[in-house]
């Protein structure tokens, strides 16, 4: 990480203000006016639109292996998604994915 302390605090401050303004937006400023249905529809997909795109390169080309695709990480990612879809629980998905990851690391280390 190559940021100065001031730059890090700038990121924190602007993220804090930006996040608050997003949360306050309609409740605080726009009031009771209705939003166009299509805008609400777009906003509904925000989490599933942002997070998968952020994760995909990290799964396929991990920085820890200098970008080499790593079967251990691929399998852990796959298990995480499957457990999450199956149980509908983020907590179980984390447990399943992390357990798979560490067991696979241990197996590879033992080989």
């Amino acid at each position: 990480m190559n940021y100065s302390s001031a730059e890090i605090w700038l990121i924190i401050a602007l993220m804090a203000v930006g996040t608050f303004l997003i949360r306050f937006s309609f409740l605080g400023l726009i009031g009771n006016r209705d939003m166009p249905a299509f805008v609400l529809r777009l906003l509904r997909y925000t989490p599933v639109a942002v997070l998968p795109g952020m994760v995909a390169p990290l799964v396929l080309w991990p920085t820890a292996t200098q970008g080499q695709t790593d079967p251990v990480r691929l399998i852990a990612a796959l298990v995480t998604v499957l457990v999450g879809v199956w149980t509908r629980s983020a907590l179980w998905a984390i447990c399943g994915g992390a357990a798979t990851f560490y067991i696979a690391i241990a197996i590879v280390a033992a080989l």
Partner: protein
Amino acid sequence: MTTSTVKAPAKSAYWAGVRDGAPFILMAGPFATLFGVIATDAGLTLAQAMGFTVLVIAGAAQFAAVQLMVENASIAFVLLAALAVNLRMAMYSASLVPYLGAAPLWKRALIAYLNFDQTYVMSISRYEARPEMSVPDRVSYFFGVATPIAPLWAVMTLVGILAGKAIPDAWALDFIMPIMFLAMVAPMLKSRAHLAAAGVSVLVALALTELPAGTGLLIAAGAAMLTGALVETWMERRGR
């Protein structure tokens, strides 16, 4: 869950919220600890990591920001990507207006600060199930749900920061963050529109990895949101 809440004073709406919020500490506790560990691992000081947790108080966006900072993305891209993760909260904010729009401004501001996934989901389902709730009761309930979660979020981050320094590299914490994000997204893949949006997000992001850090992700997210909304519209038309 009795009908007594209907005419009872705000205090009992508050305690009903506390009770409904309590189970979420199972999720928020480990999640916050992990943020402390990862932020420390990435090179943030104790004060900086706590600054994120207390001032931003948005798990996924905090993880996203730290990830992009590890990649040394430009400050603008760190902010854009992290705030993009939080854009869903504009939708939360909008959908609370019919229930809480009449509350005093300072209360709405405090609710905005505490408006994260768990508080929002619990509160909106309570408001929808009980249209007769008064505005002060709705406000009390919201603060009740936040009460067990928000302080724990800060305390467990601190635990993670202090514990993180003792964690060896062999634990490969670099990959815990992708696992967390996947774990948060997977339960949301509940319709074809959500699946399509996630698929487009992955494909476009992978195709654009050569662009400066954060740029491809923003384009991918925009394309994916549009895909989700269009597929939903299409499914609705077909369903009629």
